[in-house]
């Protein structure tokens, strides 16, 4: 090339790769979104002792299994990142596919759980506790779905040895989804 054109993805005033900076910005805004939602839930929960009766109906063991599934999927995501750093795109793709399997397992368990609850009459309109329950867990589940789809694209490229730095980027996002669940689990399932 005659002229070296500045490329946005390689240029950085902060010394942080642009893609990674962008992911962190996304997460900084997510902190406010989820933080606001969970903060509101916590305030209402503390102000309404009667919610404990509604919260008693959430199924702790299902929440626990899903916590374990997401923790494990975070582990496979970071192993994918480790492989990508070594330039091993095939192994990275394999770990990303395992992580997507974790996402699918999480969602299947969640659908079973929600079906069960809705059939018992605990719908999003049943009372304010259940409204928060479905809104918070539903928003989180949408993040799981979005992450798994993006991960599919990243894994596709990584398998062919392309755009390996993206394995870390999707990983950072995925760990955040895990962190949100780490807080949702005690809030919705354990503190009764």
């Amino acid at each position, binding site marked *: 090339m005659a002229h070296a054109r500045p490329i946005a993805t390689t240029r950085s005033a*902060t*010394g*942080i*790769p642009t893609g990674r*900076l962008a992911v*962190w*910005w996304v*997460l*900084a*805004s997510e*902190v*406010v979104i989820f*933080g*606001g939602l969970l*903060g*509101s839930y916590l*305030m209402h929960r*503390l*102000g*309404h*002792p*009667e*919610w404990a*009766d*509604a919260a008693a109906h959430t199924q*702790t063991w299902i929440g*626990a299994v899903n*916590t*374990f599934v997401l*923790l*494990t999927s*975070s*582990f496979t995501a*970071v*192993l994918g990142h*480790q492989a990508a*750093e070594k330039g091993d795109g095939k192994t990275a793709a394999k770990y990303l596919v395992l992580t997507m399997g974790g996402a699918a397992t999480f969602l299947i368990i969640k659908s079973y759980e929600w079906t069960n609850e809705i059939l*018992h*009459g*605990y*719908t999003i*309109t*049943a*009372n*304010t*506790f*259940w409204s928060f329950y479905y809104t918070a867990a539903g928003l989180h589940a949408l993040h799981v779905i979005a992450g798994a789809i993006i991960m599919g694209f990243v894994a596709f490229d990584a398998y062919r040895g392309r755009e390996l730095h993206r394995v*870390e980027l999707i*990983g*950072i996002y995925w*760990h955040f989804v*895990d*962190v949100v669940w*780490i*807080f949702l*689990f*005690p809030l919705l399932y*354990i*503190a*009764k």
Partner: protein
Amino acid sequence: MSEHQDGHHVNYRNVYLILVVLFLVSVAGPELGIRWLTLVTAFGIAIVKANLVIQNFMHLKWEKRLMKWMLTTSLILMFLMVAGVSPDVLNHEGRNWENLAAQAAVERGVEGEGEGGEVAAEEVVAEAGFNAAQTFNLVCATCHGTSGAGDGPAGVLLDPRPASFTDPAFWETRDMDRIRAVIRDGAASVGGSSLMVAWGASFSEEEIGALADHVASFRPPE
């Protein structure tokens, strides 16, 4: 490769194992039945776990300081929001105000907010003593409407449409025995729609009589 990527040697497996152990402790915590301990194991451990994931898996440990400040700013904004709003949400009365709706919600308990759909609604009736109008509004009005005009939210999609008790034509072919029979045994027992199911198992004969009287109260004057 930036210095960031070369610099850290985390044993991811060990971090993962620690996370799993912490997770097991947080699940086991409530089994002891000590409330403050449950809260410590639930939320204390959540913070420790989140920190382990953020520092080691997301590599925030090795990230530039700018990034940490960015996230801290976000967290501070979130806490400001919560701190600013919480006095109004946590308290239900202050020096110059009271939140009657919130007080009433606490007073009613969780069933009063309509928890558990139809089944729970029936339980409320059983506990509170029988009130025909209230029962009609909880159980029948879903299809028949609170005004008895057959315009309840769940009735919109039914075919045939739910009976309208405010329609003079309805009363031309009905008497009180038939109203009671339909409530008790379902409309199909008198050749009507099977969508009007039998309620004989849920209500006593006296309660069915009171419900039938309530239905008759919608009858337009002749």
